């Protein structure tokens, strides 16, 4: 590992750790923190990182790549189908109108029509990274504006595919002069061939997703090694990105497609939670490098020009967004949020401008300028939202606090069952027979596959991971059943649930009595020892086979269970009195001894005098009266 790498890592991580908390404390959100951190460590201020900012940007774009993979993963076809009107309607109105307006303005300034169109397409993009991050931080993803924002961003992300395919056609005059030294398969091809290549690559990703990735993940999952699965997930993302780069296409695009393809597989949630941390940190890095790459010397040499461009573009975008919001009947304050949130130029513009300059559609100077405009507009977004939060919303907003019912983008079940082995499956069947649908979490991919075939709503993944619980709807559910085979995993799950989802009623399967004691210590009220009822039921049948009447035997069984469960909390406490350390098996024997002694003292069935007329009979006999 070389020194430069460590040095850079040190600076970037320190910038994040220093500036993000400051920004959060000031109520500005993490995105602005990263951007400010980037500006300050960048060449213009402290100069900790110099011109390599651009190279870092390439690396950091990987955060965007992973984010798009995750967005793709969320695009389960059925979800997308439900959102189709919003995505196609709102999305296309925003995108087409913005493109046409910007195209007209640039044409008016004196650009060639090709350059104006290319700029229009690139500048119409908004920043998925900034908007989604901000929405999530503010908890706005479920609001109307959140949903509309997501729809618009989704449309744009999808639109990148045909745009990348179309751009080469705009560059007819410039085909013979590849601009950068970056030699890829694409450069040097005629326009039509490039278009075909793009379409071919897209098809390849979709096919390989179905035929290669899913079977590959199944194979990996069967090995039951968590880190191997993470490695496989990363391999898919990086592999797809590399292939796309080799062809000369946007890696973000490729992984987005891979995500969409995998969204319908049983690995959706596991992949999501595996990639999430990488995405977070790389996206932070991306924001820092956006901040660092702002070319302040260019800005200060044409301050008016840049300011005019930024303002003009943001105003055009905001205007179009506001009208779009009105058309999709957003309330005023939701619309303002939607308008200001999406008014920036997005990270895809970097990708598109790089491609545009590579195709020689736009001069290098203008490309640099546009990149600067993009970065500045991104920096402006958190500030605009902040201004909205502080000044516009409190005054103009028609703040209606009424919670709108979340659309059925994902239907949440009232019950979550973690672990669908022999215990959980019986339970799940019983609930289903009574018309209660449960969301099931299980980490055995073979079983998950089978259950999905049988029409259960099953998530593949480790139930103790908070993000998976969240995706399974732990925020909305009422009851969480911890039915996992391993007691330790159950404890872990119980602890996390109690801390993070205190509204959930937690009902826990206990393997043994000792296991139940642990759970009592943890404060769990609903504990179910898996061996108790079955062994008592067997005991009842033994009594019956020996000639005891069935009802008497059943009552004896009922009383025994009641007595045994009532004694649990006390015995659990008593357990801690023993000051010597005992091995587990020793402990078991001691426990048995204690129980047997207790039983002798208070026989749970000895005092059952129900329907016992002997006493009455004796009394009447004593009286000498007839009976």
């Amino acid at each position: 590992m070389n020194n430069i790498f460590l040095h850079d890592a040190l600076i970037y991580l320190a910038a994040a750790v220093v500036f993000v908390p400051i920004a959060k404390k000031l109520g500005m959100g993490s995105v602005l923190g990263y951007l400010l951190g980037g500006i300050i460590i960048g060449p213009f201020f402290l100069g900790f990182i110099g011109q390599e900012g651009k190279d870092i940007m390439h690396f950091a774009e990987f955060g965007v790549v992973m984010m798009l993979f995750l967005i793709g993963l969320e695009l389960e076809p059925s979800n997308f189908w439900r959102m189709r009107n919003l995505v196609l309607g709102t999305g296309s109105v925003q995108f087409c109108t913005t493109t046409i307006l910007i195209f007209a303005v640039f044409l008016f300034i004196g650009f060639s029509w090709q350059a104006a169109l290319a700029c229009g397409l690139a500048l119409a993009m908004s920043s998925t990274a900034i908007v989604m991050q901000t929405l999530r931080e503010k908890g706005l993803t479920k609001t109307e504006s959140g949903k509309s924002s997501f729809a618009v961003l989704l449309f744009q992300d999808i639109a990148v595919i045909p745009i990348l395919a179309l751009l080469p056609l705009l560059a007819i005059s410039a085909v013979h002069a590849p601009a950068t030294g970056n030699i890829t398969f694409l450069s040097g091809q005629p326009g039509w061939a490039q278009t075909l290549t793009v379409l071919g690559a897209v098809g390849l990703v979709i096919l390989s997703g179905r035929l290669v990735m899913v079977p590959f993940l199944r194979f990996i999952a069967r090995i039951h090694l968590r880190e191997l699965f993470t490695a496989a997930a990363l391999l898919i993302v990086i592999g797809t990105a590399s292939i796309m780069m080799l062809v000369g296409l946007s890696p973000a695009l490729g992984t987005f497609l891979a995500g969409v393809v995998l969204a319908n597989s049983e690995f959706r949630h596991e992949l999501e939670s595996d990639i999430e941390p990488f995405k977070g940190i790389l996206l932070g890095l991306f924001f820092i490098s956006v901040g660092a790459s702002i070319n302040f010397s260019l800005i200060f040499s044409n301050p008016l020009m840049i300011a005019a461009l930024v303002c003009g573009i943001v105003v055009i975008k905001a205007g179009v967004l506001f009208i779009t919001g009105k058309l999709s009947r957003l309330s005023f304050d939701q619309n303002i949020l939607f308008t200001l949130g999406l008014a920036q130029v997005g990270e895809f513009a970097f990708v598109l401008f790089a491609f545009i300059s590579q195709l020689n559609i736009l001069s290098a100077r203008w490309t640099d300028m546009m990149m600067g405009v993009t970065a500045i507009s991104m920096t402006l977004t958190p500030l605009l939202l902040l201004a909205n939060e502080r000044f516009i919303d409190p005054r103009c907003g028609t703040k209606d606090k009424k919670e709108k019912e979340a659309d059925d983008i994902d239907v949440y079940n009232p019950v979550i069952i973690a672990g669908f082995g022999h215990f959980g499956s019986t339970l799940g069947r019983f609930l289903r027979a009574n018309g209660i649908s449960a969301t099931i979490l299980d980490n055995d991919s073979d079983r998950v596959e089978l259950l999905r075939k049988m029409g259960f709503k099953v998530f593949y993944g480790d139930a103790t991971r908070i993000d998976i619980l969240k995706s399974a709807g732990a925020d909305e559910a009422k009851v969480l059943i911890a039915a996992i085979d391993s007691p330790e995993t159950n404890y872990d799950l119980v602890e996390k649930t109690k801390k993070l989802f205190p509204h959930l009623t937690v009902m826990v399967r206990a393997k043994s009595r000792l296991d139940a004691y642990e759970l009592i210590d943890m404060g769990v009220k609903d504990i179910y020892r898996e061996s108790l009822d079955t062994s008592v039921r067997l005991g009842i049948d033994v009594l019956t086979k020996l000639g005891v009447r069935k009802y008497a035997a059943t009552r004896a069984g009922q009383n025994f269970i009641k007595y045994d469960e009532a004694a649990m909390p006390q015995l659990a406490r008593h357990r801690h009195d023993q000051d010597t350390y005992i091995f587990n098996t020793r402990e078991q024997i001691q426990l048995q001894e204690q129980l047997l002694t207790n039983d002798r003292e208070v026989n749970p069935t000895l005092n059952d005098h129900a329907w016992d007329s002997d006493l009455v009979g004796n009394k009447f006999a004593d009286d000498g009266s007839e009976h």
Partner: protein
Amino acid sequence: MNKILILFAHPRFEKSKTNRALLQNIGERQGVTLNDLYEQYPDFNIDIDREKELLMAHQVIIWQHPLYMYSAPALLKQWIDLVLEYGWAHGQDGNFLKNKIIFNTITTGGTREVYTPGGYNRFTIREFLVPFEQTAALCKMIYLPPFAVQGTHLLTGETLQHHVALYSALLDRLVTGDFNIKEMNKIEFINDWLLPETGLTKP
């Protein structure tokens, strides 16, 4: 101040209209304890000690139930068989319930008229309730006439509200001790005793 214990037995409470109305807001009422037997003992395994403690803590006991096949639902019979033990509730030393007040609150599908010697059911409500009356006597308790909401199938909202108001008035009077046992025992249904007393009239 009397404390009232309602021993409620209804295996299909979720479908009940009349009993639900009678028990509306019962939890907020001072001095009244609702013991929902089918909710408490779904396995019919009655906790006798708990029930005895409850009985000791109250002065007025109500068996509230729909009349099924001219008697109480099975769990209430189970309760009577198990809880009212010899030597505790009855017998020579069984004096723990002595002088407590007890009566039935019942709901029937048939009207008052079909429960007459010439009617469809041939016997009166009081005749069908004889086992309860004698059980109370055996336990040295004071048995009052039943509170009965009848013809529940034909009950309109307004009539039902009339019964709810009557029952509520009854519980109030029992809690405050504002009643005369002799007067009450002169009539067939406790409803009729309340009518002139409370100023409520039949709609």
